[in-house]
């Protein structure tokens, strides 16, 4: 039997159409989930850092704790919402890529919110007087603070991406691992493990890690580039 590295390399080299479809779907689901989580989580995290309201502490604690939400629980919650007998059942979204995106947003939103809050709080503490002397109110300072913290925030976004691309529990429950439709890298790895094709399962794992590595390298490179250009 050839080793898993050789299998992985062979699969990639042959641009196996089934594999390419699975990789495409995995990237589509996870990147869309990251994008949505950022659109909601970055402003929400920054607002949470700056706003002062009763119950702010408990809200922060809940978001921090939800970073440890087990993927299968996130999947079950979304499953029960989207099931035909659930409150959003009429949308018919269960066992679709959209359901998987929703489950992953639930998973990574707490990471983006919590890490953004932490980063923005630190920057605010540092530049508070400066920003206030320029006449910027707390909430009007949000875009500036997010922009200032972009390199640190990128780490939070990457953590979210890592969690989403690595998890299998949520996408398996809400997606159903349907061949050609909702089968992602992680659910395919689970399936091949269950078929006893351990070599192929490891090969798929190597490909997934390579993808993650490539994206992280690109993000790091972009961060370095931004740092270099803007000082």
């Amino acid at each position: 039997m050839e080793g898993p590295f050789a299998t992985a390399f062979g699969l990639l080299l042959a641009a196996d159409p089934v594999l390419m479809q699975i990789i495409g779907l995995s990237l589509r689901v996870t990147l869309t989930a990251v994008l949505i989580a950022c659109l909601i989580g970055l402003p929400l995290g920054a607002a949470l850092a700056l706003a002062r309201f009763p119950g702010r502490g408990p809200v922060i604690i809940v978001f921090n704790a939800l970073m440890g939400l087990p993927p299968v629980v996130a999947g079950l919650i979304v499953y029960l919402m989207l099931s035909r007998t659930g409150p959003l059942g009429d949308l018919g979204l269960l066992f679709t890529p959209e359901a998987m995106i929703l489950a992953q947003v639930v998973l990574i939103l707490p990471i983006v919110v919590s890490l953004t809050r932490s980063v923005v709080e630190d920057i605010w503490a540092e530049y508070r007087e400066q920003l206030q002397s320029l006449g910027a109110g707390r909430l009007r300072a949000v875009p500036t603070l997010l922009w200032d913290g972009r390199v640190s925030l990128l780490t939070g976004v990457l953590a979210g991406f890592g969690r989403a691309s690595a998890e299998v529990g949520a996408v398996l429950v809400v997606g159903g691992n349907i061949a050609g439709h909702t089968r992602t890298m992680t659910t395919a790895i689970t399936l091949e493990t269950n078929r006893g094709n351990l070599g192929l399962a490891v090969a798929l794992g190597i490909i997934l890690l390579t993808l993650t590595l490539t994206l992280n390298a690109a993000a790091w490179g972009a961060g370095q580039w931004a740092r270099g250009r803007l000082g």
Partner: protein
Amino acid sequence: MTPTRRSALLGLASSLAMLAALPAAAQEFITVASTTSTENSGLFGHILPIFEAETGIEVRVVSQGTGQALETGRRGDADVVFVHARAQEEAFVAEGYGVQRFDVMYNDFVIVGPSDDPAGVRATDSAAGAMAAIAGAGASFASRGDDSGTHVAEQGLWAAAGIAPAGDWYLSTGSGMGATLNTAAQVPAYALTDRGTWLSFANRGPLEIVSEGDPVLFNPYGIILVNPERHPHVKADLGQAFIDWITSPEGQAAIASFEVGGEQLFFPSAQ
């Protein structure tokens, strides 16, 4: 923001938007809740392309244990269920969740175990006798433990042997057939498996078939349309078209022609 940065960001944003907007198949489809044994063996990969080419109806299979597949049908999250636990299937229809059960095919269960056979199962002449030998020797046994069709069949065998399995030797994995076989191969332990999954399973380790052929190991599969009266969104016409096809001479021939390693895995049984 400099123009290059802006265009880079715009490019990133638009490629993300494109990823999000990849066209979904406009084709008609049905969702079938089925079992791990049919999916893991590769049967669907063999027969579904034939059906899809002929009718243009895409079949999306969610493979679960029989218990979970029937629950998916009860909730209305599938149009058709295709499973193997007769009593549960009949209850599903009797409760009004399914329209009617049709026989599709059968295979059989086999008992696999370590090749050195520490419990002496090969010397027994019935499945219940095999289970009694395993329990008597306290030899490890890996159970699905997940209310699947295979788990239900296993519980029937213990009952026939007059044994309530419990103890360190009885390992309830709570997982699918393949995962349970992976566990059994490592321990090593005895296990009950459908022949289809076994024949297509690649990580057998020291396991081999130690007991087979007892008529109680017969494993029939049935197909049921989820009742559109209970769940109006069920695609009754498309689902019935699939049921009609799989029970037709053509569908039955497709099932019979599925082989792994030159061995036929499922035997047509539609009336």
